């Protein structure tokens, strides 16, 4: 009989303790960020999709060696280049030197797993992570990024 | 040390008199390992391992006892481990296509601090891979065997419910076979 009543009493007590805790929380400030109205700054190392880095002249640093393409586990990167002399642009003296120029750098973000292998395998520091995360879309094509075009858009 | 007792018990499964067969087996394995560790990995291989018990370095391989036996002796070996209080870790397969064999690999380990991971391998021809089930002894092997059947097509004789587990129920392909084309 004693156990019966003590169980009821202890049970009620535990319930009251729980109620007190939630009651205290009731008056504490909210901790959430109302997302579309307010955003938080992404941390320094946040890894978004990749982005090409430009050199001083505004051209991509990429020399289209294809290391990123080979390193990518999901085959999300496709790039193309053409070999040109590129005379007009050369400001230095070495006019005859051949150069591979990036003509296409596409990232298929639908298959990208943001592992960062491409950035790590790039020996020329030509790609980096963007801080983009507002990437919702209902169309698949919106995630086929033409990074070269994005670079030009950023510059203009 | 449970390692020695289990090793001894497993050794007894092999019918041949111990000293005669054991020496070459151990030597072959050591040679095999040395091969791998040193410069010339490509040479002198594709010699299917001889059945027997090997002791492995835990730090190097992650397990202690490596047993290869005939499918027929499998249940006896499993029973030894069951009696010694091992728990089943996993059952899986390896497709040795060059040797035209399928290998089923059973991992057992211990809950106590006497670390001893035992690996039991048994090989069966690729054309008709049949291995007795151990799910009667370790019910936990039920799913693992179904999975192995999914991936490799090894038929576990006596399994109560050998239908695809991870693959779709109408799957008739075995994706981890080396000649699998998706």
């Amino acid at each position: 009989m004693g156990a019966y009543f003590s169980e009821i009493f202890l049970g009620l007590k535990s319930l009251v303790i729980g109620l007190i805790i939630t009651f205290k929380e009731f008056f504490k400030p909210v901790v959430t960020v109302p997302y579309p109205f307010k955003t938080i700054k992404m941390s320094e190392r946040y890894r978004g999709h990749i982005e090409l880095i430009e050199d001083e002249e505004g051209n991509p640093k990429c020399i289209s060696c294809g290391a990123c393409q080979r390193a990518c586990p999901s085959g999300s990167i496709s790039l193309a280049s053409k070999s040109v002399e590129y005379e007009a642009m050369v400001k230095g003296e070495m006019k005859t030197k051949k150069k591979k120029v990036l003509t296409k750098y596409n990232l298929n973000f639908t298959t990208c797993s943001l592992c960062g292998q491409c950035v790590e395998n790039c020996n020329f520091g030509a790609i980096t992570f963007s801080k983009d995360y507002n990437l919702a879309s209902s169309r698949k094509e919106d995630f086929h990024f033409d990074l070269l075009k994005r670079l030009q858009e950023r510059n203009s | 040390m449970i390692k020695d007792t289990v090793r001894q018990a497993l050794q007894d499964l092999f019918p041949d008199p111990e000293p005669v067969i054991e020496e070459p087996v151990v030597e072959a394995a050591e040679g095999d390992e040395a091969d791998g560790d040193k410069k010339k990995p490509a040479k002198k291989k594709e010699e299917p391992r001889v059945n027997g018990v090997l002791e492995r370095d835990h730090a190097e391989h992650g397990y202690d006892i490596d047993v290869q036996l005939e499918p027929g002796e499998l249940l006896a070996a499993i029973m030894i481990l069951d009696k010694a209080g091992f728990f089943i870790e996993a059952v899986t397969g390896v497709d040795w296509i060059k040797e035209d064999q399928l290998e089923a690999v059973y991992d057992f380990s211990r809950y106590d601090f006497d670390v001893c991971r035992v690996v039991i391998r048994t090989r069966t021809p690729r054309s008709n891979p049949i291995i007795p089930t151990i799910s009667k002894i370790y019910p936990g092997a039920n799913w693992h065997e179904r999975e192995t059947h999914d991936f490799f097509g090894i038929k576990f004789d006596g399994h109560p419910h050998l239908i695809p587990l991870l693959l779709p129920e109408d799957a008739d392909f075995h994706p981890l076979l080396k000649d699998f084309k998706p």
Partner: protein
Amino acid sequence: MSLTILNAVIAVVAAIAFAAVNAAYLVWAERRGAGRIQRRPGPNVNGPLGLLQPPCDGIKLMAKQIMIPGGADKALFMVAPALAMAPAIMSFVTIPFSDTIVAHSMNVGVLMIFAFASLGAMSILLAGWGSRNKYAVMASVRAVSQNISYEIPMLITVITIVMMTGTMDLKELVAGQAGGMWNWNAVPSLASPLMPVSFLIFFICSLAETNRAPFDLGEAESELVAGFHTEYGSMGFGLFFMGEYANIVIGASLITILFLGGWGCPLGLFPGVWWFLLKIYILIFSFIWIRWTFPRTTIYGLLNLSWKILIPISLFNLLLTAGLLKVF
């Protein structure tokens, strides 16, 4: 004659309006309250403080297509939501909000409310059976057994009170408690020293009767998907939802009337409808508060609680009160 009909129509319309507005805004209050307890804002986008959320929800629910699952019993499926809402509204007719605001005062008001409250279980049963879903059937069976087992201690407690006050008229019940909180039924008196316990029992029972957490086994999301209204969408679901909140208002009103002095002030000053509303909203807040604090009980834990703890104690209280009433 025509005046009575007009009166009745006004009363019913007012009751429906009160029930509907309450139901709609209790949803809002619940979501806001839950949000505060969980350290998040709750609905706050539609209108100031999210006050336009309930009408938006209502429009959305009404605009949706009514889906009837294949093989369901069409008639029962359609009747069940209405049956959830109707008794709840009917009960409002006899609840006195103050000594003047009451749609129809009856001398058996308590009985009538309980009669209608029992119909609520019927709607759950019909919904579960009609929607041809195993989860729904299991949930409705649970809900019915829960309703039956909790009506017993509830009614025993009510009998105790009726015995003390000698009336079944809700207005007279309140009048008997007038003049301050020391006269309330929830406060122990010489004749019934265990009244706070009875109050607690009644409170727990009304939680269970309204299928509120921690006794919401009828719609236990995590095991029975959504319980008896798994197959309901659009306004069918909306009616169940409103019925649930209307039932909560009735439960709170009943507790107020039976135990907390109805529209009387705790200090005996300025009695009026505002006290009544204040009390029921405090009670409703505590319902919300409890729901967002505790996990759900099990079905056998629930029945054990009723049969092993609540019923013996309330019976003991009944006998004790009966004996003491003879003495004093």
